[in-house]
């Protein structure tokens, strides 16, 4: 049995219903909300501001700090609030995904704090977080070379699908886990990849197909981000 039809009836390259908005946190210098189906991420940016304690300052370029957090009510069973091993990992990879596009060399001695909170989770939370953070950084007026868009590509049995849901992540074939999930973040202009992780198995011959699917999906997400940013007044 192979995966011929998606569980929620989407086409293989179709994204979930996506919406975005900026300026949702009045106290922050920049903020954005990004919803991808049932996954909702909210990002708030504070700064550029003075970095204290002073010994952490970098006189050559600014510092970008990312805090990713899943709220306790974001999943079916309540998760323990606070920092976990998983959230620390995602904070760090998000930081790496965002650093190449921010022109930190123009902001020496400062810090930019990015807080990502997941209001509701249904797979692809780190991607939604990166999408929201990119928009929030643009709203905060941080100089940036380009934007970044992220999407989770999946392999169900033998088929490549875009924007997987939790249900698909747990897909099984003959009683064995047959789903692979590959979050990819791609820059908008140079199409460089700033995040790529792999959870599961993927044959090398499939990598090209995955990249092609990611490029297509990231383009679509980029259009949504740009539209939301331009609606700002």
């Amino acid at each position, binding site marked *: 049995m192979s995966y011929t039809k998606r569980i929620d009836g989407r086409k293989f390259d179709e994204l979930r219903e996506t919406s975005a908005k900026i*300026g949702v946190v009045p106290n922050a*210098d*920049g903020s954005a909300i990004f919803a991808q189906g049932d996954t909702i991420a909210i990002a708030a940016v504070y*700064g*550029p*501001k*003075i970095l204290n304690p002073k010994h952490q300052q970098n*006189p050559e370029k600014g510092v970008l700090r990312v805090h990713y957090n899943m709220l306790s009510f974001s999943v079916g069973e309540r998760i323990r609030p606070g920092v976990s091993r998983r959230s620390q990992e995602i904070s760090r990879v998000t930081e790496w995904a965002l650093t190449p*596009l921010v*022109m930190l060399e123009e*902001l*020496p*001695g*400062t810090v930019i704090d990015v807080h990502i909170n997941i209001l509701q989770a249904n797979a692809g939370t780190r991607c939604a977080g990166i999408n929201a953070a990119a928009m929030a950084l*643009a*709203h*905060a*007026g*941080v*100089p*940036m*070379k*380009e*934007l970044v868009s992220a999407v989770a590509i999946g392999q169900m049995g033998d088929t490549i699908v875009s924007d997987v849901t939790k249900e698909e992540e747990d897909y099984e074939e003959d009683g064995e886990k047959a789903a692979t999930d590959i979050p990819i973040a791609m820059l*908008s*202009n140079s199409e460089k990849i700033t995040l790529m992780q792999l959870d599961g198995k993927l044959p090398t011959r499939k990598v090209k197909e995955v990249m092609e699917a990611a490029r297509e999906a990231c383009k679509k997400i980029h259009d949504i*981000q*740009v539209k939301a*940013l*331009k609606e*700002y*007044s």
Partner: protein
Amino acid sequence: MTEKTQELKQKDKREIVVPGEIIAGEDFLPGDWTMKQGKDIISTRLGIVEKSDKLVKVIPLSGVYIPRYGNVVIGEVKDIVSAGWQVDIKGPYQAFLPLRECPGFVETAEMESVYGIGDLIVTKIFNVGRTSVDLSMKSRDRSLTKIRDGTILAVNPHRVPRVIGKEGSMITLIKNATKTNITVGQNGLIWIKGEKIEDEIKAEKIINFVVENTITEGLTEKVENYIKDMEEKK
């Protein structure tokens, strides 16, 4: 329709650009908040494009205040150090007011009585370094002072040009309508000083109205109507 209003209308139509968007080709020079990428010029901030002759620049719409030489700002004294005062001007860097830039002779022991910690001051930026901002309190018309009373209002610093208006037209309108004295800091802090507290509250309401409606055309007329409505309600 005069030339000026036509110019304004064209300005209102200008499109918002996002970071990484191509805004001009080879025949332009990159100005503020733009950069060259290959042959094209791209924007590096969320803002509005302004092209003049051969120069293209982006006017930012949001974000923290970036200190510029000559700006009059309102700041809060944070610390007293040996050679001057540390002042928070709501920018990315702490500003410094040296002792020598204070009018008159000040004894080191008396520094606290001149500007104490927590005092608000109207001050001018006279030097912007790589990671530092220097302030000055020296002015001919004595407009740079310590704030003793009145109302302080914080607005988005990118809306300050609209609050002031063309050659100060908007701020003069508000001043005359409320009989108050208003000092607008480029960092978004506004000091309103009136005879009565009611006048200050009125001025605050009008300024907030201006800030919320910056994109709309014919703002001056709208503000005039808004002031009329306020007076009728009384």
